[in-house]
């Protein structure tokens, strides 16, 4: 069934200043274009906040290397999107809802073709992800994880560590860094999901494990680390079960 014009998905597109100058911008009404100086400008936390506010699809448009006016803004965007897709998957959204489109600022003339194509893809993925309350919680957790120091410093340094060299003069192989980033993204997401879940109501390890779908021992380990970082504290004990409550993180 083809997407009628009646129910197209709400798409937000962040477009770099140099791609598609004004005249080439015939855009379908469900795609809202927001101009930014460079596609690298898109802070992962902002993209997640866009999803959390109801966007069903986010399209990032930038210049194809080597034509980025800011030298490597597009490469940084690529790395950010790679991490964002991991976070979206963890949050229960289809990673395809986020797309990075790198066009040649000279050759590519027709933006509407790309916009329609992407709307089609998003529409195929079914209704808005926000229908499930649980996904909203995930998105908030993902946003906070993406705003935390840990993920951001790794993302910021990724290029330097994998392209040039680290403090010891070694170049970290791409897959190795990816694996490390994978674990850290998962850990941070789980911790901020725990933090979100225990903000309103103190919860036990078992309860959290059941909600998160991971082993209670893993949840406990995360809680020990969260205690160390001042994110969570024991609230009270019911019977034989300690219940934890989130601490406001500065």
């Amino acid at each position, binding site marked *: 069934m083809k997407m009628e014009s009646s129910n197209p998905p709400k798409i*937000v597109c962040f477009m770099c200043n140099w791609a598609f100058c004004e005249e080439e911008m015939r855009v379908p009404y469900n795609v809202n274009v927001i101009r930014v*100086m460079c596609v690298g400008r898109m802070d992962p*936390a902002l993209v997640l*906040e866009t999803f959390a506010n109801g*966007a069903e699809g986010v399209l990032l448009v930038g210049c194809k290397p080597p034509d980025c006016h800011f*030298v490597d*803004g597009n490469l940084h965007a690529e790395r950010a999107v790679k991490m964002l897709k991991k976070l979206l998957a963890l949050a229960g959204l289809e990673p395809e809802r986020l797309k990075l489109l790198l066009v040649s600022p000279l050759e590519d003339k027709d933006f509407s073709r790309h916009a329609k194509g992407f709307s089609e893809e998003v529409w195929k993925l079914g209704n808005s992800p926000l229908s499930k309350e649980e996904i909203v919680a995930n998105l908030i957790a993902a946003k906070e994880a993406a705003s935390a120091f840990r993920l*951001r*410093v790794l993302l*910021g340094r990724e290029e330097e560590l994998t392209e040039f060299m680290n403090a010891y003069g070694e170049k970290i192989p791409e897959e190795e860094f990816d694996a490390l980033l994978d674990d850290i993204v998962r850990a941070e997401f789980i911790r901020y999901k725990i933090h979100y879940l225990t903000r309103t109501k103190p919860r036990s390890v078992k309860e959290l494990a059941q909600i998160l779908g991971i082993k209670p021992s893993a949840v406990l380990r995360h809680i020990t680390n969260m205690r160390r970082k001042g994110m969570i504290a024991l609230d009270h004990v019911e019977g034989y079960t300690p219940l934890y409550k989130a601490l406001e993180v500065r």
Partner: protein
Amino acid sequence: MTEKLLQEVRKFPPCRAACPAHVNVQAYVALIQRGKFKEAVEVIRRDMPFPAICGRVCFSPCEDACARVNLDQAVAIRALKRLVADIEREQGRVVAEPVPKKYGEKIAIIGAGPAGLTAAYELAKLGYPVTVFERMDEPGGMMRYCIPDFRLEKFVVANEIAYIKDIGVEIKTGVEFGKDITIKSLKEDGYKAIFLSIGTQLGMKLNVPGEDLEGVINAVDFLRAIALEKKITVGERVAVIGGGNTAIDAARMAKKLGAKEVMILYRRSREEMPALPHEVELAEKDGIKFYFLVAPKQIIGENGRVKAVECLRMRLGEPDESGRRRPIPIAFSEHQYEVDMVIPALGQIVETSILPPELISKEKRGPPLQVDPLTLETNVPGVFAGGDVATGPASIIEAVGAGKRAAVSIHRYLRGEDLRKGVEEEKIEETTWVKDWRLLEKKERRYDAPIEKPHLSFEEAKEYLEKLKRQARFEAFRCLGCGPCAECLASMDLCEGDKAVVDEGKCVGCNVCAVVCPVGAIKKNEKGVAQVNEDLCKGCGLCAARCPERAITMKKLSDEQIITMVLTALER
């Protein structure tokens, strides 16, 4: 525009700083990137009146200074300027409306060469009634009469000068300074300020025996005669003496007019030749032979006509005050070249006789006129002088630069302001910013329009022009945008010099911003907190996106602003 230019301490990208007329290169290249050719020409015109001319013949100091030289090849700035000017002309000449007169003082410009015309153009834009007096029948000076057609078409010169007329400059030709008009007469006619830009008239003499034989004609007179369509007979074998652009032009013109064999004798070596390298290549392509380290000793004639020229071999000694090594003749190295025509092209000098005595400078060495290099005042109040007449033979762009400075001095003189304010040697800070060249990708020059335009049909020309336009945008993309905001009239309001701002309380000094910033505009200061260099910051926002402590926001395009746009977009 010039007024504004002189005041503030100017932070120009290297290209603009190198250009004697400080043309805003970065602005028009940025506009070309976006395909805005019409606006590009307007930007050029803000700084100088001859986009098409300079696009063709300028020696392009801007390309030598281009930061991209460190990476691969300079951006083809001159070619781009030429293209946009040609496009504008191809699509029908833009008739500029005359500038309303704001002041009453009448100004006289003597000499319609590049210096004079630029001064007139600038003063007209300021609202002065300007009259240009020109000895020749057509305005343009060297541009019109000296540069051969195959380098600078006449209609191009006419077109550009027409634009100057449109904005209200009155040009009177056939009026000779010193004869029809003098300083005194002009003053009497009510001209409050006079600008002497008559350029150089006389070719320099060889000062060798046999110089006045028949068949010896100075290069400038040779080219002027051709420009005036006078009948000139060109010999079979022609020898041109000298190494500058005029020598090359004369040699190639001679070849074109049928000379079998044309040779250039130059007393220094190839590296010291002042002519533009690609001009020399074109000359070689035309079959002109070059003989270096050779200087004429005497011209041998046979019944009044040139038969041969006898030369001495040279070797190079210590550099003279112009920095070029002084040629020293080698004894007993006489040898002869069988030629029937000799064209000396040693450069021009001013014909002092036509100058009013009170202006002539006392010192023996150096240029004849006594002119303040910065304010272009002469010792006679109200009388200014610039261009080749003040500095000796120089390029067109330098003359344009002189014209602009003269306009400012005259404007201040008439308004009674201090001429020297803000004029001490121009405080220009060159900003070359790219942090890591190795970060950048090498991009070959994508645009090298041929100097001469091939002859095409209309359709071919149209399609050829489209192709050129696309190549030009690619080439424009190679510009690294060294300077701060280039006021390139970009329609997007976003690009109005957004800057990053650091919240010192939150910053822990992890230096990720310095790693990420493509321009090296943000670094940790000695206090250990990130500090933004506003001049270098391009407002791309990469640092704000990556700052682990989210301590960096953008003045205009902040996170909150983006989110509000998202919310309105999603009608939340």
